[in-house]
């Protein structure tokens, strides 16, 4: 159970068509408006209609780093939702359910049967079952009424007064039904402070916003779960800033279009998931070879192949770094949370421009759909970098050997700078050249130019003092970092000495930082959501460390409790 003086977790579950998502959105928005921090987590079926859907809202007074261990309040709109969650119904959990079914209430679970189906039918508005549930939950657990009503009004008014009226009637009915019940739990939503300057945004939208801030001019993508909302967001907003975008015929076309636009001198990006990364790999090799700035967002999902399209997994790391033929790498960044989705998308664009190489930004399905409250970003304070362009002096050579191995680019239209971008091995002037000497020199150029990146860009965080000893040092990447943060706080409260290492630039790898961190830890534990232990594998390959790898791959993120248990086993 969560420490409910600080935060509280709602889980609402039912059928995909029952309005679970909007119900969760309303709770999240109302809590955020009342000054609480929000971290939402959803799962939904891969099918368009029907199937189990779940929306979890964690609302608290302090910053939230993950979805939590379990939930405090469970609302089941149907029997299936109850059956799926029965094992999570721990003593002390409040359980609100539609009384059209009769669950066995586990010991210690505090039950609130609400006639959701009956009440909505009686109101002549069967689809408002979720609103009856929302009304009941808000009354039982103290969701501030004014912001909640405001949220509902804002949402439904756009659909007409009649829609607003019938939804509010259903909501009020839910409130009334709950008022008649005796409150048998002690759960009350903590009170927020009302003056925070925040936005509440999902990971996918945040990547779109980051791209706008980073100066995106061109976007192309092919629809894919769970990345499509990035395209949706940019389709709405990129034209406002004068940029262009297109939905390509496939992922190969979208990355090709991005590279064409980048050659033309524009900042260009695509967004996809694992299957799209696989299709793009040949063209990413071209971007590496032709040294064309390219940004690809990979919102990872369960793989391989079609895999678990709507589920959480961190299993594209090796594909992101190495997934092309020949000697290639990509610069790989990975985000921990929604705030990173904004700032690191800008970073990815800046780095692609600076290093003229493909950059892959790894996000995750759970972040894609997670809405989080973050301080309102100020675009004017965020640095945006332009590529090094030819100064017009001397004779232009596209792949000129320079001190930092980065050759100035020249946009089409630049007089006296005609050149070719090519996937053939080439000389400084772009002419094909297949001699041994040349291939060695140019391969070195393409790899050596990346070496300085970790000196200029080091988004790594160390939780703990490097000088003191610890029993366990935990290394995590992506959204797992947020889970480890909370686990470490709790482990320390138990008196266990643990430290955390959170790298966000995964390639080029910051080997010395990994090794420095590990020096004063008895055991290094790498936790990640994939079967192979991909970061652990990379650490063994690139550093002198031999970490313990702990992985899960069930389509869900880690919980802090799982990390805690793993650490205890290692002691």
């Amino acid at each position, binding site marked *: 159970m969560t420490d409910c003086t600080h935060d509280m977790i709602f889980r609402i579950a039912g059928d995909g068509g029952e309005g679970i998502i909007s119900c969760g959105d309303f709770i999240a928005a109302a809590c955020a408006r009342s000054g609480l921090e929000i971290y939402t987590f959803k799962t939904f079926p891969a099918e368009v209609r029907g199937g189990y859907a779940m929306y979890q809202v964690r609302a608290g007074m302090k910053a939230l780093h993950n979805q939590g261990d379990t939930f405090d309040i469970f609302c089941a709109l149907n029997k299936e939702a109850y059956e799926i969650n029965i094992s999570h119904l721990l003593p002390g959990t409040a359980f609100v359910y539609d009384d059209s079914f009769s669950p066995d209430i586990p010991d210690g679970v505090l039950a609130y049967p609400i006639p959701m189906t009956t009440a909505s039918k009686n109101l002549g508005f069967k689809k408002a079952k979720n609103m009856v549930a929302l009304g009941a939950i808000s009354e039982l657990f103290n969701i501030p009424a004014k912001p909640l009503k405001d949220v509902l009004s804002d949402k439904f008014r756009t659909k007409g007064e009649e829609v607003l009226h019938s939804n509010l009637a259903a909501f009020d009915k839910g409130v009334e039904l709950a008022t008649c019940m005796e409150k048998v739990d002690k759960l009350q939503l903590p009170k927020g402070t009302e003056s925070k300057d925040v936005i509440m945004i999902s990971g996918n939208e945040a990547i779109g916003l980051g791209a706008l801030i980073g100066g995106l*001019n061109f976007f192309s993508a092919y629809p894919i779960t769970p990345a499509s909302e990035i395209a949706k967001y940019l389709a709405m907003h990129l034209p406002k800033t004068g940029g*262009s975008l*297109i939905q390509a015929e496939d992922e*190969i076309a979208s990355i*090709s279009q991005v590279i*064409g636009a980048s*050659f033309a001198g524009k900042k260009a990006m695509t967004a996809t998931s694992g299957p799209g990364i696989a299709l793009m790999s040949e063209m990413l090799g071209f971007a590496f070879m032709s040294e064309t700035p390219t940004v690809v967002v990979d919102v990872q999902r369960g793989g391989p192949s079609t895999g678990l399209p709507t589920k959480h997994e961190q299993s594209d790391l090796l594909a992101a770094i190495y997934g092309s033929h020949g000697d290639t790498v990509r610069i790989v960044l990975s985000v921990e949370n929604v705030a990173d989705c904004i700032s690191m998308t800008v970073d990815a664009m800046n780095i692609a421009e600076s290093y003229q190489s493909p950059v892959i930004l790894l996000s995750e399905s759970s972040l894609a759909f997670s809405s989080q409250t973050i301080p309102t970003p100020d675009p004017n304070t965020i640095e945006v970098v332009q590529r090094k362009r030819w100064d017009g002096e001397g004779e232009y050579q596209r792949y000129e050997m320079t001190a930092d191995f980065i050759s100035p680019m020249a946009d089409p239209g630049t007089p006296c700078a005609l050149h*070719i971008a090519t996937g053939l091995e080439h000389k400084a002037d772009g002419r094909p050249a297949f001699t041994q000497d040349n291939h060695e020199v140019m391969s070195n150029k393409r790899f050596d130019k990346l070496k300085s990146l970790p000196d200029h860009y080091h988004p790594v965080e160390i939780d703990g003092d490097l000088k003191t000893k610890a029993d366990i040092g935990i290394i995590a990447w992506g959204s797992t970092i947020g889970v480890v943060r909370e686990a470490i706080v709790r482990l320390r409260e138990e008196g266990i000495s643990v430290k955390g290492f959170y790298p966000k630039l995964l390639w080029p790898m910051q080997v010395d930082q990994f090794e420095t961190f590990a020096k004063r830890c008895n055991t290094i534990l790498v936790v990640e959501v994939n079967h192979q232990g991909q970061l652990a594998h990379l650490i063994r390959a690139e550093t002198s460390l031999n970490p313990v790898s702990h992985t899960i791959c069930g389509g869900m993120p880690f919980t802090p409790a799982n990390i805690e248990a793993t650490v205890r086993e290692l002691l």
Partner: protein
Amino acid sequence: MSEIMKAKDYQSGIHPVWCAGCGNYGALAAVYRALAELQIDPAHLVNISGIGCSSRMPYFLKAFKMHTLHGRAGPVATGLQLARPDLKVLVTGGDGDGFSIGGGHMPHLGRTNVNLTYVLMDNHIYGLTKGQASPTSRREMKAYTTPYGGIEAPMWPLLYMLTYGATYVGQAFAGNAKMCAELIKGGLEHKGMAYIHILSQCPSFNKMDTADYFKSIIKDIPEKHDITDLRKAMRLVYKFREQEKEPVGLLYKTQRPTLDDIMADLVKQAGGSKDYDIRKIIDLSRP
């Protein structure tokens, strides 16, 4: 660009690596000529290709150039054109590049009417890999991997491009540099997706569809042909096929909004401007 550009002024200085007698020389000469006739500024010309013998053309041309991946010249060009509608975009490539590995992109170049000129040199064979059957090879052709003859029927690129929505479609034989140049010139002047199919012999590997063979099957499109009528253009291709002939000349030409025009309208509709205050977008995410 101030001085008058002659055809030879568009040469890059790199000499073509094609075999003696290759039809692509004719296509290249025609490209030089068309560019000179239009006095196109090399700095504002981008030539994009995929992989194959004909896809080497960018190396021989004075322009900004991209030698990309097998089959991908079309989408690379689309991205570039949308990003920089001020540039003149020329795509050059072959039959395998355009209609086999890149065949999935062709419909979208046509339907979106992206403003570029696509010169496809069709030699009915994979030359660079030394003579395998291509999607336009005749079935009975015995080639590298088809010692008993092929099992796949050839496709009809002209019909495909008409169907896909190209707004300028013509065909010429590489041996007729004048006609090639006229068609390419028209394509470069045309606003929209211009497709120019050049029958281009491969003397090294295609011993069946030789220059003489191409000469024997080509037949001028009658002067009275109405180039603005799509159905008539398609019917003409069918009719010629029945006579085992290939029509040469301009087959079809129409005007339709181009991809970049539509995008520009959309940006205008959204009130698009470089100076748009992103904070207004950020405010939409307030809870």
